[in-house]
């Protein structure tokens, strides 16, 4: 009897082991838990990362950050730029088996546009931040028509924004009967399996996923086939523990490690690093209403006192290049004009300071230790500026406090990073505005704002390029902030992970990624 039991147990264990081997699970470290499972509503970057594996929008960002169709087969723009027609791909299924129709798109968008949903990007589509959607039609099951009140060069780019949840199209069953949020049912290559708050999120491969016809993945679009059975996002807040987990093969991938950890992990057997420049804007903000810093010569002097090459090399361990433009280096709009930045010239800085009558008055610069690159950027800037006679004093605040000071404009100088904006118009928009209405804005120049408004309306690429170049030149002259670099994302992964690479949008993509046997 015992022998029979033992035999049965052995067979069961062997079968179990066989099944466990057949099931491939990619284990990915997240530095913080997701906020919710509702795309684009209660979200942060980690939430976006997870949700963009479950839901898909009509359009999405390509590898080069341009916008291409995703659920749409094609997108037609009317001659007046006020009507967009989306032809949907046929035979796309939701994760509950239902087929995607134009009615689903209309329903999802009407829900997004309802203020009660609290969609993060409502302002981009209700007329506050650009064109207003005046109506959505579904003339046939595979056609959706959006009507706008004015032309907008940003309409598709806003639709594709990761922080908007990629405007992911949802099935109605994502909501409970009372209209409250239940769980996302999208059309993405993975479906939500389990979320254990504070511990992990598990996604399962969606077997009936309908990939696009392209040869391979292209940013958030292209052929997005899941090659692993499941993805397990594990919440590991401490970077040292995350590194230990990767080294001990307890996880397969860390999508974002610090530059110093990347250097260390590069030499670890079984681990490789994937670098990519990103589209964040890292630099020093000036309060142009400050009695001292309202003098453009002092701001320009600070800009000339910094050795950008040396600083960026130190900040990124040689993985990034300096960029003084609000147009990210990886943007298709990063032109020869955008490359014209500040010259490191301590003599010129001293001349400007003397001309402005500066004689060592202290300038307070806010930094924080939550984001080490902001602290280091402040520290290096302070050290370099001393050589030109500038007296910059650092004030270290907690990140939440610094963010409040940024929002209220209550600072002289601060080391700051703007999260990635994928279109130059949105990059400039995050910096520009009327300070009396929005104190957080750093660049208050009505002429420049008129140029930006034109760029937002314009959809012709060449014309947009000219407008962005003009804005860059004006910004370098006004120096409301010194943009230093865009940064680099470094992902650390086990050798067994195949097909993964970092990209300028930074958010990791786990379709097209497979696991070789350990």
């Amino acid at each position, binding site marked *: 009897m015992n022998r029979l039991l033992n035999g049965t147990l052995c067979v069961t264990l062997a079968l179990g082991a066989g099944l466990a081997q057949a099931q491939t699970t990619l284990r990915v*470290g997240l530095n*913080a*838990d997701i*906020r*919710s499972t509702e795309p684009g509503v*209660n979200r*942060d970057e980690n939430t976006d990362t997870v949700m963009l594996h479950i839901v898909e929008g009509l359009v999405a960002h390509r590898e080069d950050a341009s916008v291409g169709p995703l659920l749409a087969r094609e997108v037609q723009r009317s001659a007046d730029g006020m009507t967009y027609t989306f032809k949907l791909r046929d035979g796309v299924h939701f994760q509950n088996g239902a087929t995607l129709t134009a009615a689903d798109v209309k329903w999802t968008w009407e829900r997004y546009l309802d*203020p009660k949903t*609290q969609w*993060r990007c409502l*302002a981009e589509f209700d007329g*506050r*931040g650009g064109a207003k959607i005046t109506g959505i039609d579904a003339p046939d099951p595979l056609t959706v028509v959006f009507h706008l009140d004015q032309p907008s060069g940003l309409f598709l780019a806003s639709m594709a924004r990761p*922080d908007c949840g990629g405007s992911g199209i949802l099935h109605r069953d994502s909501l409970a009967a009372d209209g409250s949020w239940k769980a996302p049912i999208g059309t993405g290559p993975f479906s939500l399996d389990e979320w254990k*708050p*504070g*511990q*992990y999120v598990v996604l399962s491969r969606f077997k009936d996923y309908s990939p696009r016809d392209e040869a391979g993945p292209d940013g958030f679009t292209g052929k997005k086939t899941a090659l692993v059975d499941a993805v397990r996002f*594990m*919440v*590991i*807040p*401490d970077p*040292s*523990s*995350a590194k*230990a*987990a990767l*080294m*001990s*093969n*307890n*996880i397969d991938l860390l999508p974002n490690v610090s530059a110093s950890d990347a250097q260390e992990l590069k030499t670890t057997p079984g681990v490789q690093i994937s670098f990519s420049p990103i589209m964040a804007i890292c630099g020093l903000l000036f309060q142009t209403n400050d009695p001292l810093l309202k003098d453009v010569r002092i701001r320009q002097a600070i800009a000339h006192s910094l050795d950008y090459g040396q600083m960026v090399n130190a900040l990124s361990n040689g993985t990034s290049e300096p960029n003084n433009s609000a147009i990210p280096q990886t943007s298709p709009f990063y032109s020869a004009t955008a490359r014209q930045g500040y010259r490191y010239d301590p003599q010129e800085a001293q001349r400007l300071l003397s001309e402005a009558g500066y004689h060592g008055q202290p300038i307070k610069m806010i930094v924080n230790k*939550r984001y080490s690159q902001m602290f280091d950027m402040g520290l290096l800037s302070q050290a370099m500026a001393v050589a030109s006679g500038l007296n910059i004093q650092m004030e270290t*605040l*907690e*990140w*939440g*406090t610094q*963010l*409040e000071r*940024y*929002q209220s404009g209550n600072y002289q100088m601060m080391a*700051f990073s*703007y*999260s990635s904006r994928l279109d130059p118009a949105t990059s400039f928009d*995050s910096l520009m505005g009327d300070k009396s*209405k*929005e104190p*957080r804005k750093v660049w208050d120049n009505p002429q420049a704002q008129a140029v930006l408004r034109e760029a937002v309306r314009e959809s012709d690429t060449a014309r947009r390029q000219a407008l962005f170049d003009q804005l860059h030149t004006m910004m370098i002259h006004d120096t409301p902030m010194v943009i230093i670099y865009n940064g680099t994302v470094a992902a650390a992964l086990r050798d067994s992970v195949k097909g993964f690479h970092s990209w300028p949008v930074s958010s990791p993509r786990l379709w097209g990624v497979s696991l070789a046997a350990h």
Partner: protein
Amino acid sequence: MLRFILQKLGMAIPTLLLISVMVFALIRLIPGDPALLMLGDMADPQSLAEMRHTLGLDHSLVTQFLIWFKAVLSFDLGFSISTKQAVLPLILDRFSVSATIVLVAVLFATLIAVPIGLIAAWKQNTALDLGLVSVATLLLSIPSFWLGLLLLHAFGIQLGWLPVVGYVSFAQAPWQAISYMVLPVVTLTLVEVGAITRMARASTIEVLRLEYIAHARAKGLSERAVLWKHALPNAFAPTWTLVGLILGNLLGGIAVLETVFTLPGIGRLMVDAIFARDYPVLQGCLLLITFIYVLVNLCVDLLYPLFDPRVKL
């Protein structure tokens, strides 16, 4: 006894009331806006105002306090600003993780440290005493996160015996749960062994100087009998108070160790809540911790007569 318990619990009510007012006020004194932290650097004034309205932050502080306090009286601690989860089940779930680790570690630490303290006192001023005191001082001085990382590196990475990250509860898989608990429990035990050993040694030395010990020896009792039957019961009472304090302190969260070992405990929840200015979660955690502190002290007081018969409740 019952009167004593009711009296102690009665005294806890004004403490909790005072704490709830202080917690509410102090948290709001920290600069930073939860709505702004949720929206980040893209927050336009209208979205910010809408978010503040949704979170109920546009009411006056007094109104916010009254709304919260009324709900607390019916055991409703509200919803998390960040994740929208109900606070009470969230903190109870997280507390159970911390409590498991802490109770096991403090039990082990006590079982190890008290005999060591006793032996060190018995062999006072010998090489053995010096060695034990040195180890205890060393353990007391090592930062817990560093010790944790060291053990992680040794047993997780180099030897590969234990998992480095994650957590499994006993309800899910008991054996697996133990493998995830070993490193945090060992770390915490080692850290606490130092403090308890020193206290056990000091109180035993004091007791060994008393006349009744000399009397016991004069009666011809063996050193073992003197130590275990006569010295230990009296020497353990102050150590027991220290164990109670340590327990109360640690049950409030072992944020650093929870972060190093990725344990979803109440300490990490609290740290995350501070960074996100998640007021309801933070208020709920602090209220629970205060209550636990009161409860642990009550238990210590109730058990005191067992170790020191001179104490009457």
